[in-house]
């Protein structure tokens, strides 16, 4: 007896949708767990006060600031470098061996796992260059890590700017650089910003790299050479050492909320860009 293919069709559709729902429910379960167990402890005091007793009590203000500092400084360094590279690859050259080599470099950099960055950053910045566990070592390593993402998204965004924009600009006798800075980049801005947002997300959630380059001191870093503990690192330490499950969940909640906010902002910007050109 052959099974009616229409029945198979409906059956398969059920299974596949269950698969999709299952995948999404994992996400929901994760976020709900963190939310429910963490919200109890998240309040203004938690966000604004210092940790006490190794994190058993008190808040995570230094960690929040460490995270912000690391992300901001890395973005500050990587953005000009990344956008500049993207501009070069799209506006100032055509496909040559040189560009192929550069693209190979970018692809390879993005494929390197984070522990290798941690290994490199630790031995090179922390030890060989003598920067120690510091915001500086962390920033320099993180900049290299997020560079490929910024280059790639900037390139996509710049390529998507209609050529007519450039033509109009040239016909108004603007120079190439003027065209790029006054016409192309502003048009590509939402896409570029998406890339920046995604990179901020990466900087916020990375742990392996940060522990080995920035260290894990509990204090607020007040100089480039100070060590600090980002939220992800703090969460890792709290959770692994069993110091305080409550504070761990609370830290995770703040961490995930930040990442969610960044992702939502990135989505908003990306949709704006898509809406612009379709």
């Amino acid at each position, binding site marked *: 007896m052959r099974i009616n293919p229409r029945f198979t069709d409906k059956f398969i559709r059920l299974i596949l949708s269950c698969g999709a729902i299952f995948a999404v429910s994992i996400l929901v379960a994760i976020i709900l767990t963190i939310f429910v167990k963490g919200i109890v402890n998240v309040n203004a005091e938690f966000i604004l006060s210092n940790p006490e007793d190794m994190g058993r009590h008190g808040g995570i203000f230094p960690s929040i600031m460490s995270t912000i500092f690391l992300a901001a400084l890395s973005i500050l360094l990587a953005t000009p470098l990344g956008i500049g590279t993207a501009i070069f690859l799209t506006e100032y050259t055509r496909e040559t061996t040189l560009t192929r080599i550069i693209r190979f470099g970018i692809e390879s950099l993005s494929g390197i796992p984070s522990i290798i960055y941690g290994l490199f950053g630790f031995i090179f910045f922390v030890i060989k260059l003598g920067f120690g566990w510091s915001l500086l070592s962390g920033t320099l390593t993180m900049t290299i890590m997020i560079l490929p993402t910024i280059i790639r998204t900037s390139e996509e965004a710049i390529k998507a700017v209609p050529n007519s924009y450039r033509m109009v600009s040239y016909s108004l006798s603007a120079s190439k650089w003027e065209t790029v800075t006054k016409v192309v980049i502003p048009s590509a*801005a939402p896409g570029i*910003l998406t890339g920046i947002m995604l990179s901020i997300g990466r900087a916020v959630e990375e742990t392996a790299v940060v522990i080995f380059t920035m260290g*894990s001191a*509990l*204090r607020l870093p007040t100089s480039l050479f100070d060590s600090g503990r980002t939220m992800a690192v703090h969460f890792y330490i709290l959770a692994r*050492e069993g*110091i305080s499950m409550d504070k761990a969940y609370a830290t995770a909640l703040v961490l995930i909320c930040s990442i969610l906010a960044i992702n939502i902002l990135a989505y908003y910007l990306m949709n704006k860009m898509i809406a612009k050109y379709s």
Partner: protein
Amino acid sequence: MNNRKPKILGTFTLIIMIVCSSFLGACSQKEAKGKKHTVTIAGSTSVMPFTEKLAEHFMVDHPDFVVNVQGGGSSAGIQACLLRTVDIGMSSRELKEGETALADTVICFDGIAIIVNPGNPLRNITLSQVKSIYSGQVKNWKDLGWIDRQIDAVTREEGSGTRGAFEELVMKKEEISPAIMVQDSNGSVKEVVATDPYAIGYISLGMVDEKIIALKVDGITPNLENIREKRYTIVRPFLFLTLGQPRPTVFTFIGYVLSEEGQEILRKEGLITKVYE
């Protein structure tokens, strides 16, 4: 397009400004308080929580000092100190050859406790039993008088001072079996044993709390008195390591740790201080 450009640029600039100003704000706080003296410390995860506690109290008394404490393990602390990455290295084992360039200061003594889950009925274990568990010879709890179930043994990583002391004092010449799980800090070993009813591990005595049970070894309870009386012999020193002549700020902190006030803090935490050696 023209009215969008300033908006996006403006938002971006605003974000950068907020970040820079908070950074500068934090920096200026430091300026306002006067020049800060910094001491960086890293190393043994056994010593770390106690150093953190000392640092907390110390910084209350000396608000112009900043003491940064990190973990990494005894060997990491020794390396960091030799490379001058930190001011003070923390170690929970004696220095080995090749590390003798460092000056070691004993800040206190600490026992190593053999721990099991509170659900485990065992309360006493012999040293040779511990050795045979960790060498991989004994794999099942039934060989120790409990149920038929594999022993989930946990050890520290190779660079750990606690492991080094454990190997020296308990394993003697025998190697720890590669089949045994590895965790990289006292806290995580404790967590594993606290959540797995069939686990066994070893941690710093100063970190024992109600989450786990510290076993008697050959009938001797691991406590301060038995350590002082040299009855419980799995004991190791906590060392502060420095390279060459330490800076005055570093000297001040070490002085505080060795002072009566510092030693009292350590005593309260369950460590054995030099006064009683």
